[in-house]
Protein backbone atom coordinates (compact mmCIF):
# COMPACT_ATOMS: atom_id res chain seq x y z
CA UNK A 1 0.00 0.00 0.00
CA UNK A 2 1.32 3.42 -0.91
CA UNK A 3 2.29 5.92 1.73
CA UNK A 4 -0.57 8.19 0.81
CA UNK A 5 -3.12 5.42 1.20
CA UNK A 6 -1.64 4.40 4.50
CA UNK A 7 -1.97 7.97 5.68
CA UNK A 8 -5.59 8.12 4.52
CA UNK A 9 -6.39 4.91 6.34
CA UNK A 10 -4.76 6.17 9.50
CA UNK A 11 -6.54 9.50 9.27
CA UNK A 12 -9.84 7.72 8.78
CA UNK A 13 -9.52 5.65 11.92
CA UNK A 14 -8.09 8.52 13.91
CA UNK A 15 -10.74 11.07 13.03
CA UNK A 16 -13.60 8.66 13.51
CA UNK A 17 -12.20 7.72 16.88
CA UNK A 18 -11.97 11.41 17.74
CA UNK A 19 -15.63 11.88 16.98
CA UNK A 20 -16.37 9.07 19.40
CA UNK A 21 -14.26 10.83 22.01
CA UNK A 22 -16.24 14.03 21.45
CA UNK A 23 -19.52 12.22 21.87
CA UNK A 24 -18.36 10.49 25.02
CA UNK A 25 -17.11 13.80 26.41
CA UNK A 26 -20.43 15.49 25.67
CA UNK A 27 -22.48 12.80 27.33
CA UNK A 28 -20.19 12.48 30.32
CA UNK A 29 -20.62 16.15 31.18
CA UNK A 30 -24.13 15.43 32.35
CA UNK A 31 -22.98 12.67 34.64
CA UNK A 32 -20.10 14.82 35.84
CA UNK A 33 -22.45 17.57 36.89
CA UNK A 34 -24.89 15.20 38.52
CA UNK A 35 -22.12 13.36 40.26
CA UNK A 36 -20.41 16.46 41.55
CA UNK A 37 -23.63 17.99 42.81
CA UNK A 38 -24.63 14.75 44.46
CA UNK A 39 -21.23 14.33 46.09
CA UNK A 40 -21.08 17.84 47.43
CA UNK A 41 -24.72 18.53 48.02
CA UNK A 42 -25.91 15.28 49.45
CA UNK A 43 -24.13 15.75 52.73
CA UNK A 44 -25.76 19.12 53.26
CA UNK A 45 -29.25 17.89 52.55
CA UNK A 46 -30.86 17.42 55.90
CA UNK A 47 -34.16 18.13 57.50
CA UNK A 48 -32.97 21.64 58.36
CA UNK A 49 -32.47 22.43 54.72
CA UNK A 50 -36.11 21.96 53.91
CA UNK A 51 -37.60 23.50 57.01
CA UNK A 52 -35.38 26.26 58.35
CA UNK A 53 -34.66 29.77 57.26
CA UNK A 54 -31.13 30.82 56.28
CA UNK A 55 -28.94 31.58 59.23
CA UNK A 56 -26.32 34.34 59.32
CA UNK A 57 -22.88 33.24 58.17
CA UNK A 58 -21.05 31.35 60.83
CA UNK A 59 -24.14 29.88 62.40
CA UNK A 60 -24.91 26.33 61.43
CA UNK A 61 -28.25 24.65 60.97
CA UNK A 62 -29.77 27.04 58.48
CA UNK A 63 -31.85 25.99 55.54
CA UNK A 64 -33.64 27.27 52.50
CA UNK A 65 -37.25 26.68 53.33
CA UNK A 66 -38.19 30.19 52.28
CA UNK A 67 -36.47 29.76 48.94
CA UNK A 68 -38.29 26.52 48.22
CA UNK A 69 -41.66 28.01 49.07
CA UNK A 70 -40.80 31.25 47.31
CA UNK A 71 -39.82 29.45 44.13
CA UNK A 72 -43.01 27.44 44.24
CA UNK A 73 -45.01 30.62 44.74
CA UNK A 74 -43.40 32.50 41.88
CA UNK A 75 -43.43 29.60 39.46
CA UNK A 76 -47.07 28.86 40.23
CA UNK A 77 -48.18 32.41 39.53
CA UNK A 78 -45.99 32.53 36.43
CA UNK A 79 -47.69 29.37 35.16
CA UNK A 80 -51.12 30.83 35.84
CA UNK A 81 -50.15 33.91 33.87
CA UNK A 82 -48.27 32.33 31.00
CA UNK A 83 -49.81 28.92 30.38
CA UNK A 84 -53.38 29.97 29.48
CA UNK A 85 -52.14 32.77 27.25
CA UNK A 86 -49.79 30.41 25.47
CA UNK A 87 -52.43 27.71 25.24
CA UNK A 88 -55.19 29.83 23.72
CA UNK A 89 -52.71 31.57 21.48
CA UNK A 90 -51.59 28.18 20.22
CA UNK A 91 -55.22 27.22 19.60
CA UNK A 92 -55.60 30.33 17.48
CA UNK A 93 -52.46 29.63 15.45
CA UNK A 94 -53.49 26.05 14.77
CA UNK A 95 -57.25 26.28 14.29
CA UNK A 96 -58.19 29.80 13.29
CA UNK A 97 -55.12 31.57 12.03
CA UNK A 98 -55.10 33.59 8.87
CA UNK A 99 -52.00 33.02 6.79
CA UNK A 100 -50.20 36.36 7.12
CA UNK A 101 -51.11 37.21 10.66
CA UNK A 102 -50.19 33.75 11.93
CA UNK A 103 -46.79 34.04 10.32
CA UNK A 104 -46.15 37.33 12.08
CA UNK A 105 -47.32 35.95 15.43
CA UNK A 106 -45.13 32.87 15.07
CA UNK A 107 -42.13 34.93 14.11
CA UNK A 108 -42.59 37.31 17.02
CA UNK A 109 -43.16 34.41 19.42
CA UNK A 110 -39.88 32.85 18.33
CA UNK A 111 -38.23 36.23 18.68
CA UNK A 112 -39.53 36.56 22.22
CA UNK A 113 -38.29 33.08 22.94
CA UNK A 114 -34.78 34.11 21.92
CA UNK A 115 -34.63 37.25 24.04
CA UNK A 116 -32.06 36.80 26.85
CA UNK A 117 -33.88 36.22 30.10
CA UNK A 118 -32.17 39.14 31.77
CA UNK A 119 -33.71 41.51 29.24
CA UNK A 120 -37.13 40.08 30.09
CA UNK A 121 -36.20 40.90 33.66
CA UNK A 122 -35.64 44.51 32.65
CA UNK A 123 -39.10 44.55 31.09
CA UNK A 124 -40.76 43.22 34.22
CA UNK A 125 -38.77 45.71 36.24
CA UNK A 126 -40.02 48.69 34.25
CA UNK A 127 -43.59 47.43 34.20
CA UNK A 128 -44.03 46.27 37.80
CA UNK A 129 -41.14 47.20 40.08
CA UNK A 130 -40.84 50.84 39.08
CA UNK A 131 -44.55 51.77 39.35
CA UNK A 132 -44.96 49.89 42.63
CA UNK A 133 -41.63 51.12 43.99
CA UNK A 134 -40.70 47.74 45.35
CA UNK A 135 -39.33 44.39 44.38
CA UNK A 136 -41.96 41.71 44.56
CA UNK A 137 -42.83 38.12 43.85
CA UNK A 138 -45.43 39.51 41.48
CA UNK A 139 -42.75 41.08 39.30
CA UNK A 140 -40.72 37.90 39.31
CA UNK A 141 -43.78 35.87 38.38
CA UNK A 142 -44.56 38.24 35.53
CA UNK A 143 -41.04 37.92 34.15
CA UNK A 144 -41.16 34.13 34.24
CA UNK A 145 -44.72 34.08 32.93
CA UNK A 146 -43.71 36.19 29.93
CA UNK A 147 -41.01 33.65 29.17
CA UNK A 148 -43.50 30.81 29.37
CA UNK A 149 -45.88 32.29 26.81
CA UNK A 150 -43.94 31.71 23.56
CA UNK A 151 -42.82 28.25 24.69
CA UNK A 152 -46.32 26.99 25.41
CA UNK A 153 -47.79 28.74 22.40
CA UNK A 154 -45.57 26.99 19.88
CA UNK A 155 -45.82 23.64 21.67
CA UNK A 156 -49.62 23.81 21.80
CA UNK A 157 -49.79 24.78 18.16
CA UNK A 158 -47.49 21.93 17.17
CA UNK A 159 -49.46 19.24 18.96
CA UNK A 160 -52.80 20.55 17.77
CA UNK A 161 -51.55 20.48 14.21
CA UNK A 162 -50.59 16.84 14.64
CA UNK A 163 -54.21 15.86 15.19
CA UNK A 164 -55.39 14.42 11.86
CA UNK A 165 -57.81 16.43 9.79
CA UNK A 166 -60.11 13.39 9.50
CA UNK A 167 -60.89 13.70 13.19
CA UNK A 168 -61.96 17.32 12.78
CA UNK A 169 -64.14 16.43 9.81
CA UNK A 170 -65.65 13.54 11.72
CA UNK A 171 -66.77 15.88 14.47
CA UNK A 172 -68.05 18.55 12.10
CA UNK A 173 -69.94 15.94 10.10
CA UNK A 174 -71.90 15.11 13.24
CA UNK A 175 -73.14 18.66 13.51
CA UNK A 176 -70.62 20.07 15.98
CA UNK A 177 -69.82 23.75 15.66
CA UNK A 178 -66.19 24.67 15.16
CA UNK A 179 -65.43 25.70 18.72
CA UNK A 180 -67.13 22.59 20.08
CA UNK A 181 -65.13 20.44 17.74
CA UNK A 182 -61.94 22.06 18.97
CA UNK A 183 -62.88 21.82 22.63
CA UNK A 184 -64.31 18.31 22.69
CA UNK A 185 -62.24 16.46 20.11
CA UNK A 186 -59.09 18.23 18.93
CA UNK A 187 -57.76 19.53 22.24
CA UNK A 188 -58.40 16.27 24.14
CA UNK A 189 -56.65 14.38 21.37
CA UNK A 190 -53.59 16.62 21.67
CA UNK A 191 -53.74 16.97 25.43
CA UNK A 192 -50.89 14.65 26.21
CA UNK A 193 -48.44 16.55 24.07
CA UNK A 194 -49.69 19.93 25.25
CA UNK A 195 -49.32 18.91 28.88
CA UNK A 196 -45.80 17.66 28.20
CA UNK A 197 -44.90 20.95 26.58
CA UNK A 198 -46.18 22.79 29.60
CA UNK A 199 -44.22 20.63 32.01
CA UNK A 200 -41.04 21.25 30.05
CA UNK A 201 -41.75 24.97 29.91
CA UNK A 202 -42.38 25.19 33.63
CA UNK A 203 -39.21 23.23 34.35
CA UNK A 204 -37.30 25.69 32.24
CA UNK A 205 -38.60 28.80 33.97
CA UNK A 206 -38.21 27.23 37.39
CA UNK A 207 -34.46 27.19 36.88
CA UNK A 208 -34.16 30.75 35.67
CA UNK A 209 -32.19 33.15 37.83
CA UNK A 210 -31.46 36.27 35.81
CA UNK A 211 -35.03 37.56 35.45
CA UNK A 212 -35.52 37.31 39.20
CA UNK A 213 -32.42 39.27 40.14
CA UNK A 214 -34.13 42.62 40.00
CA UNK A 215 -37.76 41.66 40.15
CA UNK A 216 -38.32 39.38 43.10
CA UNK A 217 -34.80 40.01 44.36
CA UNK A 218 -34.14 37.83 47.39
CA UNK A 219 -35.17 37.56 50.98
CA UNK A 220 -33.50 36.00 53.96
CA UNK A 221 -36.85 35.61 55.63
CA UNK A 222 -40.34 34.59 54.75
CA UNK A 223 -42.03 37.06 52.46
CA UNK A 224 -45.43 38.10 53.72
CA UNK A 225 -47.22 38.42 50.44
CA UNK A 226 -46.98 38.90 46.73
CA UNK A 227 -45.83 42.46 47.00
CA UNK A 228 -42.58 41.69 48.79
CA UNK A 229 -39.12 40.61 47.76
CA UNK A 230 -39.18 36.84 47.79
CA UNK A 231 -36.49 34.24 48.07
CA UNK A 232 -36.15 31.74 45.26
CA UNK A 233 -33.99 28.68 44.88
CA UNK A 234 -31.93 29.81 41.88
CA UNK A 235 -31.20 33.24 43.34
CA UNK A 236 -30.24 31.68 46.65
CA UNK A 237 -27.83 29.36 44.91
CA UNK A 238 -26.27 32.33 43.18
CA UNK A 239 -25.93 34.49 46.25
CA UNK A 240 -24.60 31.66 48.38
CA UNK A 241 -22.13 30.47 45.77
CA UNK A 242 -20.46 33.84 45.34
CA UNK A 243 -20.31 34.53 49.08
CA UNK A 244 -17.05 33.83 50.89
CA UNK A 245 -18.52 31.47 53.49
CA UNK A 246 -17.79 27.76 53.40
CA UNK A 247 -21.09 26.92 55.05
CA UNK A 248 -22.99 28.89 52.45
CA UNK A 249 -21.16 27.05 49.71
CA UNK A 250 -22.38 23.76 51.05
CA UNK A 251 -25.90 25.12 51.17
CA UNK A 252 -25.49 26.18 47.56
CA UNK A 253 -24.49 22.65 46.55
CA UNK A 254 -27.48 21.19 48.33
CA UNK A 255 -29.87 23.67 46.76
CA UNK A 256 -28.28 23.04 43.38
CA UNK A 257 -28.84 19.32 43.77
CA UNK A 258 -32.50 19.83 44.67
CA UNK A 259 -33.08 22.20 41.76
CA UNK A 260 -31.28 19.99 39.25
CA UNK A 261 -33.12 16.87 40.34
CA UNK A 262 -36.47 18.61 40.03
CA UNK A 263 -35.67 19.95 36.57
CA UNK A 264 -34.28 16.66 35.29
CA UNK A 265 -37.14 14.68 36.76
CA UNK A 266 -39.65 16.94 35.05
CA UNK A 267 -37.83 16.55 31.73
CA UNK A 268 -37.59 12.79 31.93
CA UNK A 269 -41.21 12.45 33.07
CA UNK A 270 -42.39 14.65 30.23
CA UNK A 271 -40.57 12.60 27.60
CA UNK A 272 -41.86 9.41 29.12
CA UNK A 273 -45.46 10.62 29.05
CA UNK A 274 -45.06 11.72 25.47
CA UNK A 275 -43.56 8.49 24.21
CA UNK A 276 -46.22 6.43 25.98
CA UNK A 277 -48.88 8.58 24.40
CA UNK A 278 -47.55 8.16 20.91
CA UNK A 279 -47.38 4.40 21.06
CA UNK A 280 -50.80 4.13 22.69
CA UNK A 281 -52.44 6.19 20.01
CA UNK A 282 -50.79 4.47 17.05
CA UNK A 283 -54.33 3.61 16.09
CA UNK A 284 -55.05 6.97 14.65
CA UNK A 285 -51.64 8.17 13.57
Amino acid at each position, binding site marked *: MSLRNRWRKFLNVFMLAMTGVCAVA*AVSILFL*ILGYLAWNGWRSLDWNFFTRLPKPPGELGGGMANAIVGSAQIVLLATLIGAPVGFFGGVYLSEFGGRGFSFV*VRYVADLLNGVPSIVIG*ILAWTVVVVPLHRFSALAGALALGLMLIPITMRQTEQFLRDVPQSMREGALALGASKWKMIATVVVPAAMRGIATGMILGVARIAGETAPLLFTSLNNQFWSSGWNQPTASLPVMIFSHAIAPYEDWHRQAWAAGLVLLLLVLLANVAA*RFILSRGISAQRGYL
Partner: protein
Amino acid sequence: MVTATQSLRPQAGAGAFWRRLVNGDEVARLVTLAFASTVLLIVAVLVFELFRGSAVARHRFGWAFFVTQNWDPVAEQFGALPFIYGTVVTSAVALLIAVPLSLGAAVFLAELAPQRISDACTFLIELLAAVPSVIYGLMAIFTLVPLLRDYVQPFLGKTLGFLPFFQGPSFGAGYLAAGLILAVMICPFIISISREALFGVPREQREAALALGATQWESTWQVVIPHARLGIIGSVFLALARALGETMAVTMVIGNDPSIRASLFAPGYTIAAVLANEFTEATGELYLDSLVELGLVLFLLTMVINALAQLLVVLTSRRGSAHP
Protein backbone atom coordinates in the same frame (compact mmCIF):
# COMPACT_ATOMS: atom_id res chain seq x y z
CA MET B 1 -90.30 6.96 18.45
CA VAL B 2 -88.29 8.35 21.34
CA THR B 3 -88.03 11.90 22.60
CA ALA B 4 -84.26 11.84 22.35
CA THR B 5 -84.42 11.33 18.62
CA GLN B 6 -87.03 13.95 17.98
CA SER B 7 -85.03 16.62 19.75
CA LEU B 8 -82.39 16.24 17.07
CA ARG B 9 -84.65 17.29 14.23
CA PRO B 10 -84.20 20.95 13.30
CA GLN B 11 -86.16 23.32 15.48
CA ALA B 12 -88.56 25.96 14.26
CA GLY B 13 -86.55 28.80 15.72
CA ALA B 14 -83.62 28.01 13.46
CA GLY B 15 -82.86 31.66 12.91
CA ALA B 16 -82.04 32.56 16.49
CA PHE B 17 -80.25 29.30 17.00
CA TRP B 18 -78.18 30.00 13.91
CA ARG B 19 -77.14 33.40 15.14
CA ARG B 20 -76.03 32.06 18.48
CA LEU B 21 -73.97 29.28 16.99
CA VAL B 22 -72.21 31.58 14.61
CA ASN B 23 -71.42 33.85 17.50
CA GLY B 24 -69.96 30.91 19.39
CA ASP B 25 -67.40 30.31 16.70
CA GLU B 26 -66.76 34.02 16.26
CA VAL B 27 -66.28 34.48 19.97
CA ALA B 28 -63.83 31.61 20.08
CA ARG B 29 -61.91 33.07 17.20
CA LEU B 30 -61.74 36.53 18.72
CA VAL B 31 -60.76 35.32 22.17
CA THR B 32 -57.96 33.11 20.90
CA LEU B 33 -56.88 35.88 18.53
CA ALA B 34 -56.55 38.23 21.48
CA PHE B 35 -54.37 35.77 23.34
CA ALA B 36 -52.20 35.18 20.30
CA SER B 37 -51.73 38.90 19.86
CA THR B 38 -50.29 39.28 23.34
CA VAL B 39 -46.85 38.29 22.06
CA LEU B 40 -47.01 41.21 19.68
CA LEU B 41 -47.97 43.48 22.55
CA ILE B 42 -45.22 42.13 24.79
CA VAL B 43 -42.47 42.66 22.25
CA ALA B 44 -43.79 46.11 21.39
CA VAL B 45 -43.77 47.12 25.05
CA LEU B 46 -40.32 45.59 25.47
CA VAL B 47 -38.80 47.57 22.64
CA PHE B 48 -40.58 50.72 23.75
CA GLU B 49 -39.41 50.42 27.34
CA LEU B 50 -35.85 49.63 26.33
CA PHE B 51 -35.72 52.78 24.23
CA ARG B 52 -37.48 54.92 26.77
CA GLY B 53 -35.45 53.59 29.69
CA SER B 54 -32.17 54.33 27.97
CA ALA B 55 -33.11 57.78 26.68
CA VAL B 56 -30.98 59.82 29.07
CA ALA B 57 -27.85 57.80 28.36
CA ARG B 58 -28.45 57.80 24.63
CA HIS B 59 -28.84 61.53 24.47
CA ARG B 60 -25.84 62.16 26.68
CA PHE B 61 -23.37 59.83 25.03
CA GLY B 62 -24.74 59.19 21.57
CA TRP B 63 -22.72 56.78 19.47
CA ALA B 64 -19.62 57.41 21.57
CA PHE B 65 -21.19 55.04 24.10
CA PHE B 66 -20.06 52.11 22.00
CA VAL B 67 -16.43 53.08 21.75
CA THR B 68 -15.80 54.54 25.17
CA GLN B 69 -13.68 52.31 27.33
CA ASN B 70 -14.36 53.92 30.65
CA TRP B 71 -17.03 52.54 32.98
CA ASP B 72 -16.92 54.63 36.11
CA PRO B 73 -20.21 54.99 37.99
CA VAL B 74 -18.71 57.37 40.53
CA ALA B 75 -17.54 59.83 37.91
CA GLU B 76 -20.69 59.17 35.88
CA GLN B 77 -18.67 58.02 32.90
CA PHE B 78 -20.27 55.14 31.10
CA GLY B 79 -18.80 53.38 28.10
CA ALA B 80 -19.98 50.10 26.64
CA LEU B 81 -16.76 48.96 25.04
CA PRO B 82 -15.46 46.72 27.83
CA PHE B 83 -18.74 44.83 27.93
CA ILE B 84 -19.03 44.49 24.19
CA TYR B 85 -15.43 43.32 24.10
CA GLY B 86 -16.00 40.85 26.89
CA THR B 87 -19.18 39.51 25.32
CA VAL B 88 -17.49 39.06 21.96
CA VAL B 89 -14.36 37.46 23.37
CA THR B 90 -16.15 34.98 25.62
CA SER B 91 -18.54 34.01 22.83
CA ALA B 92 -15.66 33.62 20.38
CA VAL B 93 -13.75 31.40 22.80
CA ALA B 94 -16.91 29.40 23.42
CA LEU B 95 -17.53 28.85 19.72
CA LEU B 96 -13.91 28.00 19.00
CA ILE B 97 -14.05 25.24 21.57
CA ALA B 98 -17.64 24.10 21.17
CA VAL B 99 -17.97 23.91 17.40
CA PRO B 100 -15.29 21.29 16.67
CA LEU B 101 -16.26 19.25 19.71
CA SER B 102 -19.98 19.40 18.95
CA LEU B 103 -19.55 18.74 15.26
CA GLY B 104 -17.42 15.73 16.09
CA ALA B 105 -20.04 14.41 18.47
CA ALA B 106 -22.79 15.09 15.95
CA VAL B 107 -20.88 13.20 13.25
CA PHE B 108 -20.43 10.27 15.57
CA LEU B 109 -24.09 10.22 16.52
CA ALA B 110 -25.36 10.65 12.98
CA GLU B 111 -22.92 8.53 10.98
CA LEU B 112 -21.30 5.97 13.20
CA ALA B 113 -23.38 5.11 16.22
CA PRO B 114 -26.12 2.49 15.98
CA GLN B 115 -29.61 3.99 16.11
CA ARG B 116 -30.42 3.12 19.71
CA ILE B 117 -27.15 4.38 21.13
CA SER B 118 -27.48 7.50 19.05
CA ASP B 119 -30.99 8.14 20.36
CA ALA B 120 -30.00 7.44 23.96
CA CYS B 121 -26.98 9.73 23.78
CA THR B 122 -28.98 12.47 22.11
CA PHE B 123 -31.55 12.22 24.85
CA LEU B 124 -28.85 12.66 27.49
CA ILE B 125 -27.29 15.56 25.62
CA GLU B 126 -30.66 17.26 25.30
CA LEU B 127 -31.08 16.90 29.04
CA LEU B 128 -27.92 18.97 29.34
CA ALA B 129 -29.74 21.80 27.61
CA ALA B 130 -32.31 21.74 30.39
CA VAL B 131 -29.76 22.23 33.17
CA PRO B 132 -30.23 25.69 34.68
CA SER B 133 -27.52 28.25 34.06
CA VAL B 134 -26.88 28.82 37.74
CA ILE B 135 -25.99 25.15 38.16
CA TYR B 136 -23.36 25.46 35.45
CA GLY B 137 -22.10 28.52 37.28
CA LEU B 138 -21.93 26.60 40.52
CA MET B 139 -19.88 23.87 38.88
CA ALA B 140 -17.66 26.43 37.21
CA ILE B 141 -16.85 28.39 40.35
CA PHE B 142 -15.79 25.42 42.41
CA THR B 143 -14.31 23.09 39.84
CA LEU B 144 -13.39 24.92 36.66
CA VAL B 145 -11.85 28.03 38.21
CA PRO B 146 -9.46 26.22 40.57
CA LEU B 147 -8.53 23.86 37.74
CA LEU B 148 -7.70 26.75 35.47
CA ARG B 149 -5.90 28.70 38.13
CA ASP B 150 -3.74 25.88 39.38
CA TYR B 151 -3.06 23.73 36.35
CA VAL B 152 -4.36 24.77 32.97
CA GLN B 153 -3.48 28.42 32.86
CA PRO B 154 0.06 28.04 34.21
CA PHE B 155 0.56 25.30 31.64
CA LEU B 156 -0.77 27.44 28.83
CA GLY B 157 1.34 30.34 30.05
CA LYS B 158 4.44 28.23 29.87
CA THR B 159 3.79 26.69 26.48
CA LEU B 160 1.92 29.40 24.60
CA GLY B 161 3.04 32.40 26.62
CA PHE B 162 4.54 34.10 23.60
CA LEU B 163 1.00 34.86 22.47
CA PRO B 164 -0.62 37.86 24.15
CA PHE B 165 -3.65 35.71 24.89
CA PHE B 166 -1.85 33.59 27.39
CA GLN B 167 0.17 36.10 29.29
CA GLY B 168 -0.27 37.70 32.63
CA PRO B 169 -1.25 36.51 36.09
CA SER B 170 -3.80 33.77 36.37
CA PHE B 171 -6.61 34.10 38.86
CA GLY B 172 -8.76 31.37 37.39
CA ALA B 173 -11.73 33.64 36.85
CA GLY B 174 -11.66 35.53 33.59
CA TYR B 175 -12.40 35.36 29.87
CA LEU B 176 -11.12 31.81 29.50
CA ALA B 177 -13.20 30.45 32.36
CA ALA B 178 -16.32 32.15 31.05
CA GLY B 179 -15.59 31.01 27.51
CA LEU B 180 -15.13 27.43 28.65
CA ILE B 181 -18.33 27.19 30.65
CA LEU B 182 -20.20 28.85 27.79
CA ALA B 183 -18.75 26.24 25.43
CA VAL B 184 -20.13 23.47 27.62
CA MET B 185 -23.53 25.16 27.72
CA ILE B 186 -23.91 25.64 24.00
CA CYS B 187 -22.69 22.20 22.93
CA PRO B 188 -26.10 20.51 23.26
CA PHE B 189 -27.66 22.94 20.79
CA ILE B 190 -25.01 22.53 18.14
CA ILE B 191 -24.93 18.76 18.56
CA SER B 192 -28.67 18.26 18.39
CA ILE B 193 -29.34 20.50 15.40
CA SER B 194 -26.24 19.43 13.46
CA ARG B 195 -27.19 15.81 13.99
CA GLU B 196 -30.57 16.52 12.42
CA ALA B 197 -28.90 18.32 9.55
CA LEU B 198 -26.55 15.39 8.96
CA PHE B 199 -29.45 12.96 9.04
CA GLY B 200 -31.03 15.02 6.30
CA VAL B 201 -28.23 14.32 3.85
CA PRO B 202 -29.50 11.68 1.39
CA ARG B 203 -27.80 8.34 1.60
CA GLU B 204 -26.97 8.49 -2.11
CA GLN B 205 -24.51 11.29 -1.47
CA ARG B 206 -22.54 9.24 0.99
CA GLU B 207 -22.67 6.17 -1.15
CA ALA B 208 -21.46 8.08 -4.22
CA ALA B 209 -18.34 9.15 -2.38
CA LEU B 210 -17.67 5.72 -0.96
CA ALA B 211 -18.20 4.13 -4.37
CA LEU B 212 -15.42 6.36 -5.70
CA GLY B 213 -13.03 4.92 -3.16
CA ALA B 214 -13.22 7.50 -0.39
CA THR B 215 -12.75 6.42 3.20
CA GLN B 216 -15.67 6.92 5.52
CA TRP B 217 -14.02 9.93 7.09
CA GLU B 218 -13.29 11.46 3.71
CA SER B 219 -16.87 10.94 2.61
CA THR B 220 -18.12 12.53 5.82
CA TRP B 221 -15.73 15.47 5.77
CA GLN B 222 -15.77 16.20 2.06
CA VAL B 223 -19.33 15.36 1.08
CA VAL B 224 -21.76 14.95 3.96
CA ILE B 225 -20.77 17.89 6.12
CA PRO B 226 -20.65 20.36 3.21
CA HIS B 227 -24.07 19.13 2.15
CA ALA B 228 -25.44 19.85 5.60
CA ARG B 229 -23.56 23.09 6.03
CA LEU B 230 -26.62 25.34 6.08
CA GLY B 231 -28.13 23.53 9.05
CA ILE B 232 -24.80 23.30 10.84
CA ILE B 233 -24.09 27.00 10.40
CA GLY B 234 -27.64 27.70 11.56
CA SER B 235 -27.01 25.73 14.72
CA VAL B 236 -23.82 27.71 15.32
CA PHE B 237 -25.68 30.99 15.01
CA LEU B 238 -28.33 29.73 17.41
CA ALA B 239 -25.63 28.72 19.86
CA LEU B 240 -23.97 32.10 19.44
CA ALA B 241 -27.23 33.88 20.25
CA ARG B 242 -27.52 31.86 23.43
CA ALA B 243 -23.93 32.50 24.38
CA LEU B 244 -24.38 36.24 23.98
CA GLY B 245 -27.33 36.33 26.33
CA GLU B 246 -26.06 33.83 28.87
CA THR B 247 -25.97 35.50 32.23
CA MET B 248 -25.55 33.51 35.39
CA ALA B 249 -22.73 31.09 34.63
CA VAL B 250 -20.72 33.88 33.05
CA THR B 251 -21.34 36.30 35.91
CA MET B 252 -20.01 33.80 38.38
CA VAL B 253 -16.66 33.27 36.68
CA ILE B 254 -15.84 36.29 34.59
CA GLY B 255 -14.19 38.29 37.34
CA ASN B 256 -16.35 41.38 37.02
CA ASP B 257 -13.69 43.80 35.87
CA PRO B 258 -14.81 46.41 33.33
CA SER B 259 -11.56 46.68 31.51
CA ILE B 260 -10.17 45.52 28.20
CA ARG B 261 -7.22 43.19 28.21
CA ALA B 262 -5.78 40.93 25.59
CA SER B 263 -4.97 38.06 27.89
CA LEU B 264 -7.59 35.37 28.26
CA PHE B 265 -6.47 34.86 31.83
CA ALA B 266 -7.55 38.35 32.76
CA PRO B 267 -10.87 39.11 34.42
CA GLY B 268 -13.41 40.93 32.31
CA TYR B 269 -17.09 41.69 32.03
CA THR B 270 -19.95 40.96 29.67
CA ILE B 271 -23.14 42.89 29.00
CA ALA B 272 -25.30 40.27 30.69
CA ALA B 273 -22.95 40.03 33.67
CA VAL B 274 -22.86 43.76 34.39
CA LEU B 275 -26.66 43.87 34.18
CA ALA B 276 -26.90 41.04 36.66
CA ASN B 277 -24.44 42.57 39.08
CA GLU B 278 -25.10 46.28 38.95
CA PHE B 279 -28.74 46.76 38.08
CA THR B 280 -29.93 46.79 41.66
CA GLU B 281 -26.98 48.92 42.75
CA ALA B 282 -27.48 51.59 40.13
CA THR B 283 -28.01 55.03 41.63
CA GLY B 284 -28.96 57.94 39.51
CA GLU B 285 -30.76 58.14 36.25
CA LEU B 286 -27.68 58.15 34.02
CA TYR B 287 -26.32 54.97 35.57
CA LEU B 288 -29.60 53.16 35.22
CA ASP B 289 -30.22 54.38 31.70
CA SER B 290 -26.74 53.29 30.66
CA LEU B 291 -27.49 49.82 31.92
CA VAL B 292 -30.81 49.75 30.10
CA GLU B 293 -29.02 50.87 26.95
CA LEU B 294 -26.72 47.88 27.37
CA GLY B 295 -29.84 45.75 27.63
CA LEU B 296 -31.11 47.28 24.41
CA VAL B 297 -27.83 46.46 22.68
CA LEU B 298 -28.03 42.88 23.88
CA PHE B 299 -31.61 42.60 22.71
CA LEU B 300 -30.86 43.87 19.20
CA LEU B 301 -27.76 41.73 18.88
CA THR B 302 -29.48 38.50 19.86
CA MET B 303 -32.49 39.34 17.73
CA VAL B 304 -30.40 39.72 14.59
CA ILE B 305 -28.40 36.58 15.18
CA ASN B 306 -31.45 34.52 16.06
CA ALA B 307 -33.18 35.69 12.89
CA LEU B 308 -30.19 34.59 10.82
CA ALA B 309 -30.08 31.27 12.60
CA GLN B 310 -33.77 30.61 12.03
CA LEU B 311 -33.46 31.51 8.39
CA LEU B 312 -30.65 29.02 7.92
CA VAL B 313 -32.36 26.22 9.79
CA VAL B 314 -35.61 26.78 7.89
CA LEU B 315 -33.75 26.84 4.59
CA THR B 316 -32.18 23.51 5.35
CA SER B 317 -35.38 21.81 6.34
CA ARG B 318 -37.19 23.23 3.35
CA ARG B 319 -34.60 22.47 0.67
CA GLY B 320 -32.82 19.63 2.41
CA SER B 321 -29.71 20.54 0.49
CA ALA B 322 -26.66 22.71 0.75
CA HIS B 323 -27.40 24.86 -2.23
CA PRO B 324 -28.87 28.25 -1.28
